[in-house]
């Protein structure tokens, strides 16, 4: 503390230590927040095709396609330790070859301050719904779930499933035409 440099150093160090403490307290203050909330979703159009999967084996695999409705209010999830939400819509189903298949069909980033009241109608899926075989045709229990990954200022990066899901069936016939 005897010279300008030592005093400047001491003040800067102390400020940064205090900032680290504040950040940790901010994390602790949101540790017990329940980030689950309800979401309603519905499928509008569901088709399945049988086309060559050039991304993988070049064999003909089942490719699902669907449009969906999604309605949820996520504005209650934002607090001072949430920078953004990463939403993703997952299809889960069981096939004889796999006990659990999970395919992400659609995702969306909601930054803090953006509109978090979602009401989508007849949305297209963003990613290909490939099965690794012929497990989609006539499948009678595919479950759509919405989840979100919370990106905080400090702390954990939890993946939270929404309350509410939707089960749908694939048609028993392949669609030949373009959709």
């Amino acid at each position, binding site marked *: *503390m*005897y*010279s*300008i440099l030592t*005093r*400047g150093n*001491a*003040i*800067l160090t*102390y*400020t940064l230590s*205090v*900032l680290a*403490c*504040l*950040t940790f*307290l*901010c994390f602790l*203050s949101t540790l017990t927040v329940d980030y689950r909330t309800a979401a309603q979703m519905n499928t509008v159009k569901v088709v399945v095709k049988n086309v060559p999967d050039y991304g993988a084996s070049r064999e003909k695999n089942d490719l699902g396609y669907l449009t969906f409705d999604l309605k949820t209010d996520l504005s209650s999830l*934002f*607090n*001072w*330790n949430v920078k953004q939400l990463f939403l993703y819509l997952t299809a889960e189903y069981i096939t004889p070859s796999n006990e659990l298949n999970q395919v992400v069909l659609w995702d969306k980033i909601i930054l803090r301050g953006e509109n978090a009241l979602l009401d989508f109608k007849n949305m297209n899926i963003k990613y290909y719904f490939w099965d690794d075989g012929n497990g989609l045709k006539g499948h009678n229990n595919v479950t759509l779930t919405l989840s979100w990954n919370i990106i905080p*200022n400090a702390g954990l990066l939890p993946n939270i499933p929404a309350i509410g899901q939707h089960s749908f069936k694939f048609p028993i016939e392949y669609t030949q035409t373009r959709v």
Partner: protein
Amino acid sequence: MEFFKSIPTHIDYVGQAKAEKLYRAIITLFSIVGFVWGYIVQQFSQSVYILGAGFILAAVLTVPPWPMYRRNPLNWQNPRNTEEKPAGKKGKK
């Protein structure tokens, strides 16, 4: 050059203790206020800005060697007369 050398840059021991207490108090106070305010408005950036304001205030008040940190100078002994010393030693020899 003589003018710059005449500016006092030191602070005394009591002043050092005072400066340390002062910056700790300022930064701690601003951090508490910033945390509470940030929680109220649910914006952590507000907490960081308020802490930054406390940092600037503490830096202005305690980094420069202000005269208020120089009020307790050490009482040095007066220099002895250097003319007589060698003469005294010579006398003892």
